């Protein structure tokens, strides 16, 4: 069944889009991430313009992360104070990201920026995740005890000023790295159409030493607010959010996430991380191949002004 998308200006098969939402939702539920890094490329592959895809996916991620936030809120497994501090940076980052998005679009280099960011970010993060997971699996195979990081170990930024105590997370850190992480998340989220959960969770654990029981809930709360902000800002500046497309994706996404979450609980932690790493790496490689191989058609067309 075909349905006409009013903003994308093209008909799509409603079941194909729903299935995409379901599949990405399954993966996002399984790994506790938003899944934007998969959804945006899939939409572009379907023929939807990269700008519309990025803007629309932000609302889709808002839906799936809200579903998660409700669940973690009930368990009191999120740090509101930390989320608020991250958000201060996040707001600035999202605004800067949407501004750059609009600017690059007028230059005609938005598609290239999206592709390059995917290659660099997903390639490096995916590679690190795979390497880390493989080491962990080998270590458990050989029966050596798992190295635990010492709880009180300090890094250079623990010496930074403006320290604050986060009660729920039981950490005492400078707000500068917290704001920086928030800014980065908002910035790349607005430009790449990803929530950044797969980046934020490791950053919170490794850099800020946030305990694992509150990390996912807090990350989802941050994702929710930055993606909601991105949706509104993209709507105001570029009018590119397709609400119909978003709704179909959301319904598929939130349903898939529930099944994914159950599947994820049955898997071992390092296996799960390896799988996610491979997935992230594969998307990065795919974008890299597209950039390097000669394009099928070097010419492209974009409307500057005219009818909708």
């Amino acid at each position: 069944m075909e349905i006409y998308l009013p903003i994308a200006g093209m008909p799509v098969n409603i079941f194909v889009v729903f299935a995409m939402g379901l599949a990405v939702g399954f993966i996002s539920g399984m790994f506790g991430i938003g899944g934007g890094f998969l959804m945006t490329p899939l939409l572009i592959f379907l023929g939807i313009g990269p700008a519309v895809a990025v803007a629309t996916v932000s609302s889709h991620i808002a839906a799936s992360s809200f579903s998660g936030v409700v669940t973690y809120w009930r368990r009191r497994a999120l740090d509101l104070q930390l989320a608020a501090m991250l958000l201060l940076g996040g707001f600035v980052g999202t605004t800067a990201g949407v501004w750059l998005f609009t600017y690059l679009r007028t230059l005609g280099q938005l598609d290239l920026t999206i592709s390059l960011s995917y290659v660099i970010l997903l390639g490096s993060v995916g590679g690190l995740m795979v390497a880390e997971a493989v080491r962990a699996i080998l270590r458990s195979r050989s029966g050596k005890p798992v190295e635990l990081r010492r709880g009180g170990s300090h890094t250079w930024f623990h010496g930074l000023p403006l320290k604050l105590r986060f009660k729920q997370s039981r950490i005492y850190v400078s707000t500068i790295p917290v704001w920086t992480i928030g800014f980065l998340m908002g910035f790349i989220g607005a430009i790449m159409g990803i929530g950044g959960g797969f980046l934020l969770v490791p950053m919170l654990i490794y850099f800020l030493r946030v305990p694992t029981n509150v990390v996912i809930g807090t990350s989802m709360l941050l994702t929710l607010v930055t993606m909601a902000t991105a949706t509104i800002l993209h709507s105001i500046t570029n009018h590119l959010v397709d609400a119909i497309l978003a709704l179909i994706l959301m319904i598929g996404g939130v349903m898939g996430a529930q099944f994914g979450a159950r599947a994820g609980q049955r898997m071992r932690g390092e296996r799960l991380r390896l799988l996610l790493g491979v997935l992230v790496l594969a998307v990065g490689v795919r974008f890299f191949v597209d950039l390097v191989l000669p394009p099928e058609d070097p010419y492209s067309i974009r409307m500057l002004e005219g009818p909708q």
Partner: protein
Amino acid sequence: MRSAALTIAMAALALAAAPAAAAERLVSSLSSHVIRITPNFVGTQLVLFGIVERDGTSPQRHGSYDIVATVKGPPETLVVRRKERIVGIWVNADSRTFVQVPSYLATLSNRPIESIVSLDLARRLQLGARRTLLPQQIGPDTADVVRDDPFRNSFLRLKEARRLYVEQKDAVTFLTPILYSATIPVPAGVPTGTYNIELKLFADGALITSGTEAFDIAKFGFEEFVAESAVEHGALYGFATVMMAMLTGWLASVMFRRD
């Protein structure tokens, strides 16, 4: 008052039509004057039909009539970009801006244009996308370029690939020597706005008369509402989308609640 104005208008029309009375006149209409884009819109077609009206004074023609219909969508300005390889990756490098060119252009005829008129006349009347003036931005001016310019050719090719520029040499059919109909293809991705049709009647390779028609393509109902609010009330639209997202997320967490 109104009827007086009408009489004057009709008299003016009669006067204007008077010199043409010697030749034929094109009378036409459309199967529909409005195309509505609804959620299940996947493209459609319009039928244009009419007759070649002759009167006693019309000269005798040796051959049969030929009709070329040119359908133009609302004008748009767009940029064509070319990717080039820079340090190993493919980047949009050179570009050309096409100013106020038809967003949709269909050239429909009853046989190939080359066999209806001389190439010279076809070029003068701009029959067919390749012979249509496509002004490009060149510095502060606009001008069309040589016919085999790679950007111009790629523009035409990309438009044709989206079926927005079409040339059909069998779209017009004569049911009788003077009764004709034409099918106008309307693909799924058409822009909205007013479409103008210019009909040209030929006999023995010469232009005899022309006529015009017009129709509108508009987003309708829910589609219109969504598209309009997205542009006109961006903030509200974004806010409503976020609300919809939160509602969907909340419903899911309630429906699938396990504790």
